């Protein structure tokens, strides 16, 4: 009973803030609503028996990624989005397509699993020990590759967002040496 109430609270919070993310005009408000969505999803992770993933979600996603979003929004001074003059057919098509997707997924889930409840979880499942052991034995290669991917992403981000170097002056001197 309590569990159902907690689930409903966090589910409503997640859906509500997701709608704000998608619908609000001001990108800063969208970003802050995404924070609320992510924290609600982290709470749902805990309810599903994954406390480690929940802490990682809050630590990485809300603690770093969304902060990065916020920085970019503020540094680039991205203002409120003006209402578009046209595009209603596009919006209607997008809405209908999304609803069709939702209908398909819902039908598939309900058909496959029905509404049955699950057995309670063993202590082993919730602990981080088994997760860590599996991660560093079966998935070690993936782990290393993801580390490499992150390194490449850091280099790429630094290069892309860094200050563009001025081209050299015609007489071969670099710009800062000229004046």
């Amino acid at each position, binding site marked *: 009973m309590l569990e159902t109430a907690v689930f409903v609270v966090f589910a409503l919070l997640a859906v509500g803030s997701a709608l704000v993310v998608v619908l609000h005009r001001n990108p800063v408000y969208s970003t802050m609503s995404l924070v609320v969505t992510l924290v609600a999803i982290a709470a749902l992770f805990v309810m599903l028996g994954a406390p*480690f993933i929940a802490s990682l979600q809050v630590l990485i996603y809300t603690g770093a990624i969304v902060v990065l979003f916020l920085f970019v929004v503020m540094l680039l001074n991205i203002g409120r989005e003006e209402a578009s003059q046209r595009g209603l057919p596009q919006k209607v098509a997008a809405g209908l397509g999304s609803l069709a997707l939702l209908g398909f997924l819902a039908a598939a889930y309900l058909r496959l699993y029905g509404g049955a409840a699950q057995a309670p979880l063993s202590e082993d499942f919730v602990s981080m020990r088994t997760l860590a052991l599996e991660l560093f034995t079966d998935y070690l290669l993936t782990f290393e590759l993801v580390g490499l*991917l992150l390194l490449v992403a850091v280099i790429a981000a630094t290069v892309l967002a860094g200050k563009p170097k001025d081209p050299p002056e015609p007489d071969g001197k670099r710009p800062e040496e000229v004046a």
Partner: protein
Amino acid sequence: MVPVTWYLLLAALLFTIGTAGALTRRNGITIFLSIELMLNSVNLTLVAYSRLLEDQTGQIVVFFVLAVAAAEAAVGLALFIAVYRHRRTIDLNRINLLRW
């Protein structure tokens, strides 16, 4: 006890909202946020399945999805900054030099 199906349906709903946002909005940042929402709904689906099948593989995949999302967010935002420097706008309808 909450049936796991409810979590799956919630994740599907969040995915739908994210898709609708990514298809409809013009502001680049909001589209990016919608994509992050979709990624999160996928994470929720994976953890729900991990619970359903009593297998921790789902959680490990979520771990990697989290890392990949971080890398993608970093590079994507760097791209935004680079594009903004040249075009002075993030409105995706105006960044259309490659459109035929």
